[in-house]
């Protein structure tokens, strides 16, 4: 069979279930209506409405920024430029202020927290305000929503208090616990002394879901091993499934699914592992972006 013939045969096979629609106008209308109605409903409810009414847009008004009217067209160019520069400077200062306030608030707590500064490309582990491990962020990506909020000078309102960890998903365990039964006598104890320590070579990739709709994904910069890739695939499936599940749960409670502000950072494997293992279950996060 030539390639062309094979193509035609394949096309015929694919089209065959829909042959009954030929010369059946009513059937066609029913088919297309039934085809479109569910995806369209899902698209409107899970995409259009959450974007149109995202909770970050409706943040409270700030002292300095408000939805005032734009300057009239006749305004001299230098005033427009100066005003824009000032606005940008003030927005950046507001974010700095929010970030520092959050860190100070976290320093009052006893537990280890995470400080992510995307402008400085650092992710630090801190306790009581003292940095314990400084990690270099080698690459990062963030949601388009962040850019929009920054453009509106509203990002600092969202960053003004610490985020609290709600849920975490990872390719590595929090701790590799080994169970050892107590030996019956010294002979058995001496036998078990020769046992080698397991060397851990697991890939480090994890997702932290914080309150206020923030998701932080951390990936190692090193390419994963084969088993690591399989684990990563399963982890991605679980992550996507969880998002879909959350959307369905929200719909069942007659609520609109919310868009999560996501940030993806890439660190070295050692840094990623150290951060994941050090963070407690309700860890706090201060963020600057």
């Amino acid at each position: 069979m030539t390639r062309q013939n094979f193509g035609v045969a394949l096309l015929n096979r694919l089209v065959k279930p829909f042959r009954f629609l030929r010369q059946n106008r009513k059937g066609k209308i029913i088919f297309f209506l039934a085809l479109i109605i569910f995806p369209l409903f899902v698209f409107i409810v899970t995409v259009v409405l959450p974007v149109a009414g995202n909770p970050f847009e409706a943040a409270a008004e700030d002292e300095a920024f408000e939805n005032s009217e734009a300057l009239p067209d006749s305004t001299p160019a230098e005033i427009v430029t100066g005003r824009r520069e000032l606005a940008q400077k003030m927005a950046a200062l507001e974010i700095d202020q929010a970030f520092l306030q959050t860190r100070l608030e976290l320093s009052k707590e006893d537990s280890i927290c995470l400080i992510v500064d995307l402008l400085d490309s650092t992710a630090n582990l801190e306790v009581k305000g003292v940095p314990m491990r400084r990690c270099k962020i080698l690459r990062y990506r963030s949601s388009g929503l962040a850019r929009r909020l920054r453009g509106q000078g509203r990002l600092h309102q969202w960053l003004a208090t610490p985020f609290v960890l709600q849920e975490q998903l990872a390719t590595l365990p929090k701790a590799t616990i080994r169970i050892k039964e107590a030996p019956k006598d010294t002979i058995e104890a001496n036998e078990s002394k020769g046992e080698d320590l397991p060397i851990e070579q697991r890939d480090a990739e994890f997702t932290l879901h914080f309150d206020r709709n923030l998701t932080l994904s951390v990936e190692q910069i090193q390419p994963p091993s084969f088993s690591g890739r399989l684990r990563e695939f399963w982890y991605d499936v679980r992550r996507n499934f969880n998002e879909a599940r959350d959307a369905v749960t929200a719909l069942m409670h007659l609520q609109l699914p919310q868009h999560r502000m996501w940030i993806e950072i890439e660190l070295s494997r050692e840094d990623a592992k150290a951060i994941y293992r050090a963070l407690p279950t309700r860890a706090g996060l201060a963020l600057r972006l």
Partner: protein
Amino acid sequence: MSEELKNSAAQPSALSEVSPNNENIPEADRPVTALEEPQAPPARSAAGKALLVGVSLGLFLALLTLWLAPVWREWMFAILPESKFALQLRTTDIKQLQKEAQRLEKRVAGLQKKHAAITPRLPYLIVDTSENRIQVMKAGEQLHEGVCSTGSYVLLRSAAQQRQWMFVTPRGMYQIRGKRVNPVWAKPDWAFIEEGLPVPPLGSPERFEAGVLGEYALELGDGYLIHGTLYKRMLGMPVTHGCVRLGDEDLRIVYKNLQIGSKVFIY
């Protein structure tokens, strides 16, 4: 079957009257005639089939849309126009704005100062249990770096005594509570159980062992120590029962720099 139906089956219908001409022709190639119009039932089943196939495909597409919803939303954020009110300020008075900006700058500088003041002035120790390393720090600057051994994450279970111990180095902030030279180890119960030995009573001389903790020991509280070791080849590995073990030189530096009350940060 009723009599009427039997008769209708026996008598040729309008369709069967024309069928002799087409009976040997395949159905698909048969010419459509006006007499074939009464085929209403096939049309209804086609509509049902259309509904079934449409709904099945529609549900599949709906699931796909649900799965891809986060991607769709990101795409919408990218294509939607920026708000026309972006970065508008309350006033057009540049001087007032500059004053507000200066006030903000001062506030940020004040917060930075406040945050910098948190870092201890005295030397402090950072212990990394993930990579088994230590850092002696002073005012945010590193004075010394070295290797250590921390908790093994072994759960020791004793069926005979119905007890268990977890050998973990606790994380968080601690303080040096005491400093000892040539420390003597007061062996806890697990040290005997792990060796397969009978547990002696409290205060028994068997419980005390000199020379195994190195030259110095620094107390962190709850029985946790920073001390030396005889097993130097194990340094850099998670093998301890919760204490922080150091090599001789590192221990000397830590002992010299850290005073009672100095902070120890473990992560």
